């Protein structure tokens, strides 16, 4: 079977003028005649350079990547809305693209009238739409609204109708651009069900999304796009892992940069929203290490995590307490402890030093977590408190729920 989509040597660049909508107008010429705006030739932004991509038939491919990495442009090139500067696009089969739902809907017209126009735009003829009409309306759950003008629809209803028409075109290849995020939960599930049915029918799906769990659950293959280059293509789990680590690395870099900037300003006291304290003792660095001593951001379920807090003493204090806390995405505290609670008495601190805490066999459920680190006096007086100073992710093959996996075991006694 030939691949559904073959892209060969695709290059695409945009003139910066088109991107910035920076037209040369008489006014701009008049106001600063020597501005560089007049010469847009040298300001081209390359989106793709010699991109090769093959999508086998019957595969659902999840395309992930940061904003502006070229995901939507890729879809538009596949659809044919954008023409590549060079290279060839080969598509085997009928394409329906869900880049814009309800394209060409006219607010003054009823849902019924708009279904017919929208369907025609997507390439159906009148008879085909009539045949599918009931199915479309039922799927969109708009039976009682189909004869009211679309302008009276809520945005969810609008999207539902648009999606419903688009998927009922019966394409061989479905291109979806971040549309499942809209609509309520039950409809999102319905969309996914519909797409699963598509998949079962052997159709090809290309899904552009930031919703990584959906990619992992739904797609056979994932593709990570970074500044127009295919970073990794393959098994969704591995691609997503690699992507998450990269995101964590970037976040890390950004945080470090911010720290460097604030250090340059000579801020001795930490009064920002995420850091406070009088600065007598300063936490200079917090690192997350694995059992080999490598700094990591993504840990597997059940791994040991070593927290390393580097400190610097500016003014010695007796009775110093170090503490940490772990929060999940909902700001629920999963675990928190400190040296005092663990009944440790620290010896007098040197000027600089490190203190480590080994978390053994961490069975937090899969997700992203935030770490707070603090050093304070016994009376609660804060020297340095850093809220959400590090984030890390836990990956797991098990999809159980809650916060922490309590070590457990099932047993049964089935004999009477």
């Amino acid at each position, binding site marked *: 079977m030939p691949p559904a989509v073959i892209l060969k040597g695709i290059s695409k660049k*945009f003139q910066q003028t*088109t991107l910035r909508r920076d*037209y040369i107008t008489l006014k701009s010429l008049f106001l600063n005649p020597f501005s560089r705006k007049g010469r847009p030739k040298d300001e081209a932004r390359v989106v793709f350079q010699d991109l090769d991509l093959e999508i086998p038939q019957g595969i659902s491919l999840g395309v992930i990547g940061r904003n502006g990495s070229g995901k939507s442009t890729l879809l*538009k090139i596949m*659809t*044919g*809305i*954008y*023409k590549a500067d060079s290279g060839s696009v080969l598509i085997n089969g009928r*394409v329906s*693209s869900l*880049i*814009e739902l309800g*394209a*060409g809907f*006219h607010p*003054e*017209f009823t849902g019924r*009238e708009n279904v*017919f*126009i929208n369907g*025609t*735009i*997507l*390439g159906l*003829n*009148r008879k085909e739409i009539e045949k599918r009409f009931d199915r479309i309306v039922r799927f969109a759950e708009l039976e009682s609204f189909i004869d009211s003008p679309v302008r009276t629809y809520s945005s969810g209803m609008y999207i539902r109708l648009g999606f419903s028409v688009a998927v009922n075109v019966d394409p061989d290849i479905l291109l979806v651009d971040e549309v499942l995020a809209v609509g309520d939960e039950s409809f999102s599930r319905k969309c996914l069900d519909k797409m699963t049915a598509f998949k079962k029918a052997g159709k090809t799906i290309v899904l552009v999304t930031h919703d990584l769990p959906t990619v992992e659950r739904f797609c056979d293959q994932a593709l990570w796009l970074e500044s127009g280059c295919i970073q990794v293509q393959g098994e969704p789990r591995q691609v997503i892992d690699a992507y998450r680590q990269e995101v964590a690395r970037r976040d890390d870099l950004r945080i470090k940069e911010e720290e460097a900037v604030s250090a340059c300003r000579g801020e001795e006291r930490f009064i920002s929203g995420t850091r406070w304290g009088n600065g007598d003792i300063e936490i200079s660095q917090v690192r997350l290490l694995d059992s080999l001593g490598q700094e990591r951001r993504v840990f597997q379920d059940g791994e040991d995590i070593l927290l390393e807090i580097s400190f610097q003493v500016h003014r010695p204090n007796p009775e110093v307490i170090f503490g940490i806390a772990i929060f999940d995405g909902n700001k629920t505290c999963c675990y928190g402890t400190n040296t005092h609670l663990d009944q440790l008495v620290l010896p007098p601190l040197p000027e600089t030093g490190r203190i480590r805490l080994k978390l053994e066999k961490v069975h937090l459920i899969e997700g992203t977590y935030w770490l707070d680190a603090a050093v304070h006096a016994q009376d609660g007086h804060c020297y340095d408190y850093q809220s959400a100073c590090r984030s890390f992710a836990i990956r797991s093959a098990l999809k159980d729920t809650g916060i922490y996996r309590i070590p457990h075991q099932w047993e049964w006694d089935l004999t009477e």
Partner: protein
Amino acid sequence: MFSLIRQHIQDLYRYRSLVNSLVVRELKARYRGSFLGFLWTFLNPLMLLGVYALVFNIYLRIRIEHYAGFMFVGLLPWIWFSSSLLEGTHSITAGGSLVTKVLFPSQVLPAVKILANLLNYLLSLPVLFGFLWAMGIRPGWPLLWLPVIIVLHLFFINGLVLMLATVNVFFRDVQHILANLLTLWFFLTPILYPLSQVPPPFDKWVLINPMAQISLAYQDIFFYQRNPNEGNILLFGGLSLLLLGIGMFLFERYKETFAEKV
């Protein structure tokens, strides 16, 4: 070049049902929500005619027999022409998500504007006939020329709109220039005055204007009840086909960039 033109026509033909439904929608949308609704198709030209009749018949007292009827004959095709040009030039830049997010031949958009206005013109013809009839003017056999004239006029308009719509994507000034230019063009075209009123040597120059050639043809068959000047028709037809060819070529040549520029 010819393969591009063939492509242009084929795509338009393939999407004819979309053109159909969009034209119908365009006409419905125009008057939806208004109290008089579709009656405006007839009322609009009549009111415009009323204004001109007041100025030229009563205030300026132009002495031409059945002057209102004469004006009406030329005014209706001009309205078709000028509204198509204005709306058609806009059609790509105002196409929004239809241009940037969906794949379908974008020549559908200007074609819809032109055809909707043509339909408007055709629908106002009964009013024109009634008006002329009331004045005692009964157009006869020369009316058989009407389909030919309309088709040639359609080619002319379509060619011009395709060019303007393409250029307008890159220079948005076109739509503003056009609006002003159309006023000038209107007065240079013998619509409010017959050609015989133009003193020499200007009467020779008037016919350089293709809209004058076609306007005279409309007047011939409706008002003077005679066959139009075949030479003029031939000239206009040739020019229209040329314009249409250039328009289609230009449009096809640049349409792939529309999605990025709009």
